[in-house]
């Protein structure tokens, strides 16, 4: 009786609300809509408009100033014969491939380690340790790594000299043969906080009973890993992989700060080429075309990834 008394008025109010005409309902909530209008307008102006204007600008030669004329698909044709773009794509594929594997596998093992700890206190402190790098500004991290790789006074070469391996000292980011590896190793041991938290969250939702049943059935750590943990966190792993792929494809700050794409084009990636085309060469049209191609490629990869994961999950 009490329950009926408490719920029935609210149901009737919401029913009455939904029966009112739309303009009346909007008018009643006008202040909320007004407040919503500002962030939506900001989002449209500063996020959506520039993104969609790229499609339009990719059909023009535009120097950011008064030079602005239609050239159709010329920028896309140019991209096909652009040696820099080809090198950039090749570099990107190898970099993203390496990072997606590392930035998914290592956070997964770190999360596994934490959920397997018996001491809640230790588990807590390990989480803090893994999440702490989040507060260090990324750019600072890159500058530290730049110093580590410095050929004359860098920590890496100094360390090699210290242990008698001076023959291996090297201009790590100044040599086209080592630069991409050196950049791939930046932020070693690749424990990105977001991916780590996503996977940790997934592992923590696996019911304890499942692990207990597996233990009773005699499953060891590896069996449990491959037959329980990985299958049951497939969605989280997929999400971590997609996010890593998106982040790494968009990433140009690392390359800009560490090498600016050099020596030559040996560490050029499309996002950096886009940035340079726009803000260094004032070729906003060509930069927009690169942006459009990147967007389409990322969208396609994400869809493929989701489809493959869905097939895997249903199999």
């Amino acid at each position, binding site marked *: 009786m009490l329950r009926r008394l408490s719920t029935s008025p609210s149901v009737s109010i919401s029913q009455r609300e939904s029966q009112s005409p739309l303009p009346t309902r909007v008018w009643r909530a006008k*202040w909320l809509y*007004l*407040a919503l209008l500002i962030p939506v307008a900001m989002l449209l102006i500063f996020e959506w408009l520039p993104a969609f204007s790229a499609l339009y600008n990719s059909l023009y030669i535009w*120097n*950011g*100033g*008064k*030079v602005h004329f239609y050239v159709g698909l010329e920028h896309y044709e140019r991209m096909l014969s652009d*040696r*820099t773009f080809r090198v950039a794509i090749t570099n990107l594929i190898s970099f993203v491939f390496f990072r997606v594997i590392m930035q998914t596998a290592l956070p997964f093992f770190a999360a596994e380690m934490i959920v397997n700890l018996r001491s809640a206190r230790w588990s807590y402190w390990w989480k803090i340790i893994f999440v702490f790098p989040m507060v260090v500004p990324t750019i600072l991290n890159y500058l530290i790594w730049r110093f580590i790789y*410095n*050929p*004359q006074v860098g920590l890496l070469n100094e360390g090699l000299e210290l242990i008698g391996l001076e023959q291996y000292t090297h*201009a790590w*980011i*100044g*040599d*086209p043969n080592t630069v991409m590896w050196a950049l791939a190793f930046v932020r070693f041991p690749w424990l990105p906080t977001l991916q780590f938290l996503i996977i940790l969250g997934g592992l923590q939702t696996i019911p304890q009973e499942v692990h207990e049943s597996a233990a009773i059935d005699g499953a060891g750590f590896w069996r449990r890993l491959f037959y329980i943990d990985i299958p049951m966190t497939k969605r989280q792993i997929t999400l971590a992989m997609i996010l890593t792929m998106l982040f790494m494809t968009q990433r140009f700050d690392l390359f*800009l*700060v*560490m*090498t*600016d*794409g*050099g*020596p*030559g*084009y*040996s560490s050029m990636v499309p996002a950096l080429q886009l940035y*340079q085309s726009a*803000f*260094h*060469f*004032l*070729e906003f049209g060509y930069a927009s075309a690169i942006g459009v191609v990147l967007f389409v490629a990322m969208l396609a990869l994400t869809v493929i990834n989701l489809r493959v994961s869905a097939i895997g999950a249903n199999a």
Partner: protein
Amino acid sequence: MFKRMLLLSCFMLIFGAFTGMAQDEITIYATVGAYYPDEPTENNPNPPKMMNELVAEYEAANPGVNIELVDVPSNISGDQWRSTVFNGQNEPHIIVNNYIRVWQEQGNDWYVPLNEYIDGPNPYIPEGTPGHERWADSIPEVVWNTTYHTGSGNQYVVTVNAVAVGFFYNIDMLTEMGIDTDFDISYSLWEDWETMIAEMGAIAETGMKPLALSMSTAAPYTYNWFDGTSLTSMYIDHIESWWEPGASWHALNQREFACAIQNGLISAHDDAFADWLGLLADFEPMWVEGYSTLTNDETYRLFITGEAPFLLQNAASQTINVTRDVDFNWGISYFPPVTETTSPHAANNESAYLVGGFTSGFTVTDRARREGIEEQVVDFLMFLTAQPQWGRVVTDSPRSIPTQFGLDVPDALKPTVAFLELPIRALKDPDPRLSRRYGEDHRRLMQEYFTDQIDLETLIAEEDRLMTREARVVIAENEWNCDFQLE
């Protein structure tokens, strides 16, 4: 509560807008290049401060006028900064800029032609001093000729200082290695390019890379300096045929160089071009390891810590720093001439060519016109560049050699005066020589060649493709006619 806050915000926005409109004071924003009065820091304990005094004096004499000095962020390139502020229409009214950049950007109508003003009197220059009756007369004709834009017939830049580049060298270190530190010729340690290569090569054979320089595209780079001056030397017999009619020896503008490419007067397939590539390839083994990613600051540190006996740098602004930072004996030399010992194409060079010179000056931007305060902005520029004021700026912090008549060269910069007497290099840095794209791609191609990623044949083919494409683009964008070189 929420409604009240929303209304209050709207009211404040509207009130703020009206308050701004009601102001009748003028604020002039200006960049002043190396003379920006920074706060002292550990690395820069004595920053220039005279600008603050001059601003205060001008504001006192002109009630209602405020001057705000603007520091250009050091973490982005000047090009990026300008494209951002101009497109956002919040550019300062006065900008220190390289005249070549002004030429490259004039299609955007970003700068105000100053012809009318420089032909008029400058009241801040004392009577009897050159420039009092005609502002232009305070600065030598050669400076105006250098910065004059032949294409438009306009003068956009007031250049009141000159700089040169040079090799700082560690006398103690070189003496210890048994290397002669006396000048072979009036401006250089070496009588010719080959002597320089031989001496530096002797140091390189001991396992030390002798020359600290940066070829990094992530930072200001010094590589470009000898790229332009050595190319000038290789084409000495041809450059005159590239000039616009009636010109005398000068730094070529984009039109002249682009047309020379289009008209087949210079090509990457030339023998002279191949000799030039060979010259650069011979020089590369002398550069410190990692030169392609080192910044200027990092190369500077290598010199002051004694890890490299030579440093290629701006001979004006870095002189103050070197004087402050090192405890060894040092000197400053200039590039040697490239002669027929290096290539038969360089046989007619009588000297090396000046890198630097009257490169940067003050420009007045379109914002002054948009806001209707052009006269006031130019008045402040006249005040700032008049000899009594500019003399104080340079004396306070000798970072460049003043160009105006009646001003002395600061003692610290006297060794570089001989460099400034050399003829200007006809071919500037790759970037202002043709286009930004050319500058960047050319540097990257050279890096690929130096690091054995591409062979000579590929380099020449890529250079040819790049030069041809960029020449075509700049000619088309500016609708230039190139017939003058064929007459």
